[in-house]
Each structure stands twice: as C-alpha cells, then as structure tokens.
C-alpha cells in the first residue's frame, strides 16, 4: 500500500500527513496526532465514542478514512474544549455527574452540542432520541439527559 498525502485543518491547526488509504480517521487522530480524547469503543460505527466533527457535521471517525478528510476541517473534543464552545455543557455534566468512567463522554458532548445547535429547545424525548447513537454503560443516561436539558434552558434564557 502506498501512502497518500493529505492536508486538513484539525482543531484550527493545519496538518499535513502521509497516510495509508486504509487508515481510519479515529486511528489517525489518536495515533498520528495523539488526540486521544477521541475514543474507540466498537470500531464498527455503533457506540459513538469516536464521534468528531468534520466540516461541521458529527461523524463516526471509525467509519471514515483519514484520506476522506483531505481539505476538510476536523474538530475533536480537545478542540471544542479549548475554544470554550462546550464549557457550559461540560459544567452541566460536572454538576449533574453526567459521566462516570468518562469513556463515552467526549462523543456524548459532541452529539449533545450537535443537537443543541440544530434544535435549541429539545424536550427530553428529543434529547434521548438524538443520543441513541451514543452508548453509555455507566450512567443509565438520565443524568446526561438532565445536563443537556439544563444547558438548553440556560442557553435560551429559560432558566427555571
């Protein structure tokens, strides 16, 4: 196999790399860029732990090849944490103990932020529906739903 040159922007930084065509985006982020906040849970697109944003849309990075991100903009949990974009969500997760082992949390925050951008005032059913592609084995989900609901309220000025 011959490596392919790709150029992309990851968390605001330009990245140039030579990658094998079979390398998936999750492994590229973790092993080449050492962005280990993107977690690999199932490697077949079910669990959602590897959720990242590519050109603004959330994707399963285990189901996308790194070469497909040539010229793309990729954002990971490290990026959206440092930019402060999800600091209120993270604060709500902390207050509500919406994480235990934390392995699903980066993907969960990615999915939650995606929902709140699309739908600023989701009800609990909509939150639960949107998170159905992200598995959590620790919390039972209720605390996560609560934290997202609280953040949605605060962002839209509907504090209780």
């Amino acid at each position: 196999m011959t490596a392919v040159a790709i150029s992309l922007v990851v968390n605001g930084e330009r990245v140039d790399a030579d990658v094998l065509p079979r390398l998936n985006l999750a492994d590229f982020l973790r092993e080449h860029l050492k962005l280990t906040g993107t977690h690999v849970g199932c490697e077949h697109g079910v669990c959602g732990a590897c959720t990242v944003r590519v050109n603004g849309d959330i994707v399963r990075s285990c189901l996308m090849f790194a070469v497909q991100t040539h010229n793309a903009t990729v954002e990971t949990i490290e990026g959206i944490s440092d930019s402060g974009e999800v600091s209120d969500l993270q604060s709500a997760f902390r207050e509500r103990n919406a994480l235990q082992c934390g392995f699903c949390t980066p993907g969960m925050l990615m999915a939650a932020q995606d929902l709140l951008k699309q739908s600023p005032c989701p009800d609990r059913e909509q939150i639960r529906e949107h998170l159905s592609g992200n598995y959590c084995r620790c919390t039972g989900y209720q605390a996560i739903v609560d934290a997202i609901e609280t953040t949605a309220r605060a962002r839209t000025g509907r504090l209780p």
Partner: protein
Amino acid sequence: MTSAQENPETLSVLDRPNSYIGKTVPRPNLDRLMQGRGLYVSDIELPRMAHVVFLRSPHAHAKINSIDVSVAKQMPGVIAVVSGKDLSSVITPWVGVLSHLKGLKSAPQSAIAVDRVCWQGEAVAAVVASSRAQAEDAAEHVLVDYEELEAITDMRIALESSTAVIHASLGDNLAFERNHDAGTVDQAFAESDQVIEAEFVFGRHTGVTLEPRSVVADWSAAEARLTIYQGTQAPHMVQNIAALHLGLKESQVRVVCKDVGGSFGIKVHIYADEMATYALSKLLRRPIKFVADRVESFNTDIHARDHRCKGKIGVKRDGTITAFEIDDLTGIGPYSMYPRTSAIEANQVVNLVGGPYVTKNYRARARVVFQNKNVMCQYRAVGHPIACSVTEGLVDLAAMKIGMDPVEIRRRNLIADDAYPCASPSGLRFEQLSHHAALAKLIQMMDYDALRAEQSARRAKNIHRGIGIASFIEVTNPSAAFYGVGGAKISSQDGVAVRLDAQGSVICQTSITEQGQGSESLTAQIVGSVLGVSMDRVRVVLGDTDNTPYGGGTWASRGAGIGGEAALQAAKVLRKNILDVAAAVLQSTPKELDIVDNGVVNVVDGASRIDLSELARIVYFRPDTLPPGIQPEFMAIRHFVPREYPFAFTNGIQASWLEVDTDTGFVKLLKHWVVEDCGTIINPQLVDEQIRGGVVQGLGAALFEKCVYDERGQLTNANMADYLVPMSGEMPDIDVGHVVSPTLESELGAKGAGEAGTAGAAAAVTNAVNDALRPFGTIITEIPLTPQVILTALGRI
C-alpha cells in the same frame, strides 16, 4: 465500634461544621475526562512498545495438530509469533479453584492454548508487531491445523453419561455442586394451600465495558521489574497473580491503573490474554500493548448469568409463604475463571433466594457445569439478579394463585424492620435491614393505587400496562469470607494514608480504585470533613501498587464502606497529630482547638488561631522553632476490614411500570422506581447515579442482552450491532429514594450501593410484563423479554 461520644475530641464526622458527608458535591477531576484528556490504557505509549494481536480459535472445541508461523514471521513489522508452547517457558498455568467452595474443580489453563482449544475465541498464537495493523495482517497468515472435537454447549446435557467429558482428568463435567436444606421444607409444602412451580431461564450476557480490556506490560530487564498498566479494579490482586505465574516476587511487579473505561466486574478478573501479554513483555524484553477489539471483547470478556433455575414456593390462603425450593443449573464455559472462580455466582444464588422473607424453610441445589463456550464469572450484582428474579417471580405467582395483591403478599412476608439482628434461611446474618420502610416509601413514591386505577382504565381500551415489584437484599462490604478464607490472595482490607503537605494541602493515598463510581470524591469528602480542610485542597492518589497502601480495590460494593472507613480513621489520626502540634505552637491544649476551613480555631469562640499552611511551614521548614520534645507526624495511615459480619447486607425494592404491545411484542418502559438502604450516604448524587446506572444494566438483561450461541458453540452476535445494550431512547427516568440504616461496624456507617440497581431491575420488569399480560393467561419466566419471547408466549408466532 468506636462511637463519637466516647471520643469528645472529635465530633462525629456527620456533625462537624462544613462536613461534606451527606452532601452532593461534584467529583474532582472530571474536567480531565470531559476534555478528552484522560489517560486510559489504550492511550498509553512507551518507547520501543510493540503491539500484540491474538489469533483466536474459530472452533468451540478442537485439537491443535500444528501451527505454521513461517509466513507470518516474514510479514512487515512482525517482531515475533509466539505459540502457547513457546510462552510456557515464561509463565505457568493456573487452576481457578478456592478451598472454601468444597469440591470445586477445574483444569489447568494456559495463557495461550497448548494442544487444544476449548472455546471459540481462545487464543492459539500471539503475533507481536510494530503496529496493531501489522500484527493483524500477519495473524491472517498463521496457519493452524485444527481437528474439530465435539462441542458440549447445552448445560442440560453436560452431566449426562453419554456426553463427552471436556477435561478427561476431572472425570465429569460437574465443576461444583452445593446443596442446602434448612427448616422443614417437605412438611411446609404439605401444609401449604398452594404450591407453585416454575422454571426460570436467564440469557447469558456480558458487561460490554465501553473501553475494551487493555494492557500495557513493560518488563525492564535492567531493573528486573515488570510494570503493568491495566484498567483493573484490583491492582494488588493483579500484582500477586502476575508475580506468582511469572516466577517473580511481588516487589518486582508494579501495577498502575489510570482511567478505566467501565468495569462492572468485567475488569476484576485475570484473563489468559492479559497473562500472555505480561509474559510476552518478559520474553521479548520490551513493552507490549494489548487492546481487545470488540469482537474479542464479546468472545473473551467474562459472560454471566447463564442459568436455568427451577423454583417452587408454598403459600397459605392468608398469604403466608411457607417455603422456597430451587434447583439451579449454570454453565460456566470450559474453565473456572481465575482467581475468583466461576462457582461464586451459583453459590450466591443459593445464598440469596428467599432472603428478604421470614420463612426459614428453604431447600436449594446448585450445579455448575463445564461447557465449550466462553468463560463465565462475576459480573455486577453477582448472582443477585438470578436469586431476585426467581424469588420475586415465585412470590408474584403465589400472590396470583391466591388472588392477593403483590404488595400485600410482600407486606405479610418481608422480615419485620424490628426483627434484627437475624439470619436468612441460608444462614446469612443481617445486622439491620428496612424492607417495610422501603416498601412503604416505594408505594408512596409511585402512587401505587393511582397506577392500579390507570392500569385498569387503560386495560378497558386494550392498552396493556403492568406494574412489577421486586424486593431484594444485596451483599456489600465483603470481609475475608468472600475470597481470603478460600486461599485467594485478594485482600479484603483497605488502607488509606493521609498527609498534610508543606502548603497545608492534603495528599491521600488509598488502595481502593476509581472506575467512575466516585472513589476519589468519597475519599476527599471524608478526609476533608474529618480534617476540616476544603475538598479542593485534598488530592487523592489511587491505582498504583508502588504508591498506595495494600488493599482489595473496588468491587463487590466495598469501596465506600471499607475504603471510606479507612480514610475516616486515617484522617482522625492526622487531625489529632495536627492539633497536638498546633497546641504546642499556640501554647494551648488539643481539646481547646479545632480545625475549620483549613485553619486551626478555638473551640470556644471559633476564633482563628493559625492557618494550616502556616503550621505546615513551621513544621517542615522551621522545626527549630518548635518547643522541645515535639516530633510532628503529618502523615497517618489506617486500614480497615469488617470483622463482625462477613457481609454488610443492604436491602431495597424496585418497581417497574411498562406497556406491552401485544401485536409487536415490544415493551415500553414508562417509569422505574428504586428505594434502597445503603446506610450512611456520603454523596447522595453519586449514590443515586450508581443506582440508576445499575438499574439500566439490569434493564438490559431484562429486555435485550443475550450472547446467542449456536449448537456448535459459535457466538453468533459478537458485535454491538447484533448484541443489543440499552440506548438512551428506550430507557425510562428512574426515581430513587432512600432509607438509611447505617452499619454499626464502622464509624462511617456506609454500606455499598453499586449493585443494588442491577440486583432487582430484571425481576421488576418481568413481574410487570406478566402483570400486563394477565388478561392473556400467560406467564413468562425467561429473560431477555424479546419481542420473540413475548409473541411466542402470546401464541402469536
């Protein structure tokens, strides 16, 4: 027990000003996990690190005639291809038995199979390469010549004389049998107005930790020392076992456990592939990393709960339960797991059936058999869901038979709250439980009568909703009775070291571990409360055998009750030491001083006397200014283990409210309630979240989770798309309430809470489904309650 009154120097930690006990405070260090800056084993990289991939048997049972590694060895990046025989020069085999489980037998198991494979997924060769992808490529070129043998998969035929014996040296396929007979069971059944029998069937399932099992083993030939980075619940147990089988002293093995992506009992065992990874590091003299992929996880993470249990209950017309009888059969795979064994689950079933109830008449038989499937062992709430589903299923059947409300029959038979201490029919000793208070609270929380009215109204409209109730008891805070007495080197005590640093902050090293339950938080809350130091000044160190006291770790709902008490006692000693020095410096007496908000104050008027940072500065940098004869000891260590009761039992009750679609067989969970009693609650939010998480794992077992094997021992759904776990969209909100009966065995009074949710959830759901289906005259005693099971019971398919 030491009571606060006997020691006027210290108020009870529950009563101290600014106490964190009983308060919801956020867990420390969550930002690390939320920002993607945790350090899970799969994130770890070391210089010269190589990756191992295991070639695994496609057969459930086969003889290995030969292994040809010649092509694989020539593949790019390959460092070594190692067989079971090669590895046996570095690591010895093991046998998973414990002496207190009388008669338990198993066969020697090797890190990598030698000559024969006994389940689909057992490793037959290890391929070590510069990258995991290269190792996977090469593994495809390892040629194994197998001779397939008959696979024994159905546990019901494992004991028949015509069935082949999996391990000839053992004589038969029976790993363990326990019989128990208490009271006068036959007479009780004879005197009953009704005797009801049923067979309960449980789907074999597994823990599905979101982070697969992972190990980095780093043998330093220069130091003659092995460092194991592993997401384990019990670092000192791993240290002991690795040393034992690699021919090392424990002091030559360090186990480091950073962040752990879910454990639930899956990561409290020693797996063959983990042993192989330690051995490969020693053999190849370099760091070796093993990260299971998801297919491997399903095929090799321990499975649990593969039981068929016949149950029998006797009842009188007035609702009095006269006797319980069970006959439990479970298949554990080809080996008893190491070192905790695979007989514990069945043993717990015998221990726990009938546990909440008054009757003393109880007969039980449990048989544990070998089969050619993946190994089975302890997973969250070991044995409890089986015992609870059988007991509570039988109680509901009895109530139905005599036309009594399920709540009423429980009210008439649950052990009275003022009857303690007492013992269960299996001989378990209960210090203080609260079944009736819990039942009363549950009925109030769920508004039982209103729900019954709603159920009835909807039934008229052909909507089938059901209510299911399940009382339970839970084993927590295990003493040496669990493993130590059987010869396992698994500590039941834990230790905590607390020290005041030079700036007045506190560093606390504990032998319990963190997998997200909140071990760091509860330790910091206790230490901060006892010392009078704010939580942000308490740093907790755990998960490192070089840097923590010796102890058991976090499993069997023991962290808060045992590790928490050690933290409390260590902090009390440090507090005394600090006040002794402060009194000398301030020309006062310790009795006149207290520590509040990080500073020493007068007891009388609360006036500030000296900040802890200033006291620490004097002690560490200007000891020359201290009065003569004072030797400050700003570090203290204490250990704790329960001695009076083998286990601190907790109790609780759950209820499920759900709707069954009788056309599709789908179950919609509408609401779930839990009332539990874990004694002193250190952090209400963390307890509630343990309960909720536990309930959802139980709901998974009730509705979705099952390892589906075919008759040849092939696991047919070893991936996350086909093996279903609960998703957010199908889970209900769960209301949690508490009754508080502290254990008097510790000053803290805390019992465990981590497994209560899992213990009773499936029983509540099954009872609710049967309640919903009452008009159809069908009873289901099998989980998971898939649409297929429900439609079959309804005669629709």
